[in-house]
């Protein structure tokens, strides 16, 4: 049984069928990329999975649990975390606090235990801090160390993206959704990010579903690629299979286009 499955997922905004009868799955320890031209419905798929929208039709399951239409925070508790296409950090909170927020659903302390600082609450907080620090250290000294108590808005763009991933990791998800993790990065940072995504799987054991435009990253990380256009899945398979698929080439380059990989 796959870890994560979308079955016949559909969502329309007025007359626009943003996601149309989409079925796919992600296996444990797999990295799957979704590609597609702008407006293909990739981010809508993420928004459906993470509970921002309710699907009109279809089913989403994680580990055999039906999570269709649950509110966002319950989906996160079940084990799905995401990042955003346009980085959305808590900019006025410190870097450490950003990651600690990720631990929210994994901790329990209520109002009274917080005010009284009960031993149980202290233990829980120490654990949360340790987890947060572990996630920050995933990116070496870029986020951890002297920087971790500074507000997130002092970070550079690339580090903001990294922090967003660290924050998602801190929710201890089974499935990590990365929305264009390498967008806006320079070539060197892009390569590093691709490497990081592989490490997320190999070292931390996350299963990853990513939206990505940078074909080098897609080729470098994906076990499987899903291509979308007009809300439909038009191709699925290995990177080579998908990029050679005439329908994919047509979606990106039009009918007159040449081979995608020779570009």
């Amino acid at each position, binding site marked *: 049984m796959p870890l994560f499955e979308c079955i016949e997922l559909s969502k329309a905004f007025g007359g626009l069928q943003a996601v149309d009868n989409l079925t796919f799955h992600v296996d444990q320890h797999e990295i799957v990329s979704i590609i597609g031209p702008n407006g293909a419905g990739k981010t809508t798929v993420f928004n459906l999975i*993470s*509970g*921002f929208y309710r699907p009109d039709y279809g089913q989403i399951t994680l580990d055999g649990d039906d999570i269709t239409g649950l*509110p*966002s*925070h319950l*989906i*996160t*508790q079940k084990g799905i*975390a*995401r990042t*955003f*296409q*346009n*980085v*959305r*950090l*808590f*900019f*006025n*909170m*410190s870097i450490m*606090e950003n990651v*600690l*927020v*990720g*631990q*929210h*659903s*994994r*901790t329990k*302390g*209520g*109002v009274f235990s*917080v*005010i009284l*600082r009960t031993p149980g*609450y202290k233990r829980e*907080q120490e654990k*949360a801090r340790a987890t947060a620090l572990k996630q920050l250290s995933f990116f070496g000294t*870029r986020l951890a160390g*002297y920087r971790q108590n*500074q*507000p997130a*808005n*002092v*970070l*550079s*763009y*690339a*580090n*903001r993206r990294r922090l967003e991933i660290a*924050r998602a990791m801190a*929710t201890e998800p089974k499935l990590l959704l990365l929305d264009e993790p390498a*967008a*806006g990065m*320079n070539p*060197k*940072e892009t390569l590093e990010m691709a490497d990081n995504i592989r490490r997320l799987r190999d070292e931390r054991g996350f299963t990853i579903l990513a939206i990505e435009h940078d074909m080098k990253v897609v080729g470098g990380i994906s076990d499987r690629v899903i291509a979308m256009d007009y809300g439909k899945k038009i191709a699925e398979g290995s990177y080579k299979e998908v990029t050679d698929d005439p329908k994919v080439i047509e979606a990106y380059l039009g009918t007159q286009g040449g081979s995608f990989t020779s570009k």
Partner: protein
Amino acid sequence: MSIKPGIRYGIISFGILFYLSILGLPLPRTLGGFGTLALGLFWAVLVLISLVTMRETDQRRYTTIEAVTGGLLISAIAGFGMALVVGLFGRLIADGVQVNTVFAQVLPEWVGTFTGQTKQEVQAGVSATTALLRFALLMTSAGFLGAIVSRGLTHSSRERWHDWINSPFMYWLVIAMPFVFYVWYFALARGILGATNTSISGLVLACLFVTAVLVALRRVRDKRRRLVFGIAFVVMLILLPQIGDQFQNTVLNKIAIFSVVGIGLNIVLGYAGMLHLGYIAFFAVGAYAYGLLASPDSYFVINFMGGDGITFWQGLLVAAIVGALMGIIFGVPILRTRGDYLAIVTLGFGQITFLLLLNLREFTGGPGGVLDIPPPTLFGVDLGSAESILYLAMIMLAVVAFMTLRLNDSRIGRSWRAMKEDEDVAATMGINLSTTKLVAFAIGAAFAAVAGVLYATRQVNIFPDNFALKQSIDILSLVIIGGLGSIEGVVLGAVAFAGLPEILREAENYRIVAFGALLVAMMILRPQGLLPPLEHEEDIDVSDRRQDAWLQIFDAEEDDQDSAETGATGTD
């Protein structure tokens, strides 16, 4: 050159001064002997602001000569302008023209405050040319002082300014200030300084002391020193009510009570980011809950409790519970509203509460209010004096502040702040928005309600008018002025909103204008508030900035193309 802008700002300054003075800003008269000095300082500040603004507009620093020329021009134009106007009005008054039918504040005394003449002399038309000339020259020299200071401020770079602020001298000066004001306050109150009518000036010193404590506590970061000075300040605060007279303690306990209310609103607005315009309703509920269950005249006490009301301590408990419940009941319908809509709906809740208090005559006493609310007692000792209430209020403030600090630095506080910044993202971090909001409402409302109990017993008689929209706006303003999200800020805001009106009581007409101007100026110049939460005060410490600069060089050498840390952010 600075001549043209100097003339321009001179005319603007003159306009400001003229406007304030015809509104009845009688600084010399209010402050007695210190009047001229205060006016001179005011003048200097005006020139200072003008020069800094000029520099900002010109995008460059002024040389000493330019600064002095500009400063002298500004103050001379304003000074001689004022002298001219005063002279003109003096002439008109002497000629028997009823100037005060148009400018209500322009009385013979008004002219006299500038010329040093008595009312009779002004009316008799005694020439005041020399006095006015002297006044203009005095103010011009005050402007010169402002120019020098501005030159000192604007000519140094940001880092040097920062170094100066961080110098050991400034550090110890800031720490010394609370002690200075405290001793001064003590000396004044005990008559050591020989002054007699000390109520207002003592209050000023007490307020300054509180302010200085807040600033000093923020400045001392070292843990051990924090502890030492913290204990010293606490001891001083414990003895504070012993120094003051009844008037000062009454004002101080109002400040403390409003701080508690402000801290409650700060949870809802500053942390959780929900603009609650009807927040005063919770304060009212607390006050009325105690009033109606304790006052011997109340409907409930007479009909259900056999004439025996509850005690103050029971009242606190009842108010906390009722307040929290109210917070939740008012909170549920607004869970799904955000921003502007939330503000409007909560405004409605505030009005509903006010109108219910006003119109449920049978239960609440209507406009007649609740009378004879009993004072708190402990082991039979009456704690109704201003001094005892101040102690109670300080204890309450300490407890509430402590609870808030702990909440803020916890998963609950973090979930509030995360929700404030981005609700959607907070939800994807596993935060249940509904419970998080309701917890914030419940705690904020409970704080306001217990403050309400203390307020009710302080006032003895409470009326719906104590809890009208205006008070809601006042509490909102004190939180914003002080600094959203910071407890010290809220207390300072309470000093400004509960203390300043008493201090400025003699200049009542001027007070509203000053408050309006203060609000506008604050929002433009320091939108984060007087004492904002530390992380907002400065994005990053200078030392860190230097460290980052060093890292950038290091990164470049390593050919690490990490984007510049302080440079452009986000091309997305």
